[in-house]
């Protein structure tokens, strides 16, 4: 009886881990120089939202930071993000990839 319960619990833990892994979303924290005008910042938001597998873009104008979240289970090449930032007229000062499953 006890063994049966243990098996079920282990199975549930494995399923949970697999599901969690499948839901993992990669975040990219991009430092952008000179971003204080909303017209330009929203232009950057617009460009980044058009990048494949991007599900959300959050811009912090005061901090000069952009957080891009990729679709669960996907990653985005950093060069692609750098290109989008450049096309919007900005320069990347830092780019950090953060793996995780938080939104």
């Amino acid at each position, binding site marked *: 009886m006890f063994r049966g319960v243990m098996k079920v619990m282990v199975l549930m833990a494995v399923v949970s881990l697999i599901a969690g892994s499948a839901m993992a979303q990669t975040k990219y924290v991009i430092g952008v120089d000179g971003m*204080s*005008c*909303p*017209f*330009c910042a*929203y*232009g950057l*938001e*617009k460009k980044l*939202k058009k990048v494949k597998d991007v599900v959300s873009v959050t811009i912090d*104008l*005061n901090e000069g930071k952009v957080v891009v979240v990729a679709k669960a289970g996907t990653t985005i090449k950093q060069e692609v993000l750098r290109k989008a930032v450049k096309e919007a007229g900005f320069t990347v000062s830092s780019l950090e990839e953060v793996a995780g499953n938080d939104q």
Partner: protein
Amino acid sequence: MKMRNRHRYLIGTVILLVAVVWVVFQAWFPVSQERGYQFVNVWGSPGGAPGQFHEPIGLAIAGDHVLVSDAGNNRIQVFDRNGRFLHQFGREGSGPGEVARPMHIYVHNEKLYVAEYLNDRIQMFTLDGEPVGVVGSPGSGPGQFDAPGGVAVALDGSLYVADFYNHRVQFLSPSGELIWQIGTTGKKGLWTGLFNYPTDVALLPNGDVVVADAYNDRIQVFSSKGTFVRKWGGPLATNIPGSANGWFKTATGVAVGPEGNVFVADFYNHRIQKFTPEGEFLAAFGSQGEGPGQFERPTDVALDDEGNVFVVDFGNNRVQVFEPIR
């Protein structure tokens, strides 16, 4: 005799040089001709609750109501003239009644026109917030937009649109067909009639359109037929940013007052400047800060019938009101 002539020549040259410097100085560094404006009211704080703002951009006045585009919150908020919150409309999206980064707004014939930056369209609402139509679509073709920043509407309902990333101003029929455009699509330029990220438009009483040519640090004016009339902003309006009177550091918003004067939101100079319709400097007010009468990157300005000035204080997430010093 020769020495005397030389002296005369030298003195004449010096006088001429001084005169030229004086004329240039007067033209490029004008002094204020008015008593200016004084602070009377402020409302708003950072946040998403009614009456709060997250990156407000545009402002328009309709009778006793003040409408503000709250871009970061993707909504339009309506206040009375004293800043009391009345109602709001719009939510994030691309369907009818939804908005995505609403920028400069314009009221004409009991309708609100909203330039939607991320939806590449101008959406029309009743003043109660009912969506009543859309003009434009994403792109660079005639009647299409790439991030429209501002809109103004002529008496017959035709629209002038500042088409930011297309570096042009389009004049459209009420149903959105192109009548003419100024600027080269997708290419920024410095010469007269070209733009470097235009953000806003306003109309003079004679029908001329005033364009905030934001990153050329200047104002350009065109007739309703699209012909160039004049420009101003720093030496020869040639994209030289500065903080002297009549110079700009990114002109993001423009409005025309009840007497036909032109008011400009001078973004990185944290001030509002006032000019005659001919571009002659009249007054400036504001400085960087969080106190009453100070600004943190103002984006827009609008006037009521009495000449009171309403300013969107973008970085401070608030609206401030000023009255003329009489």
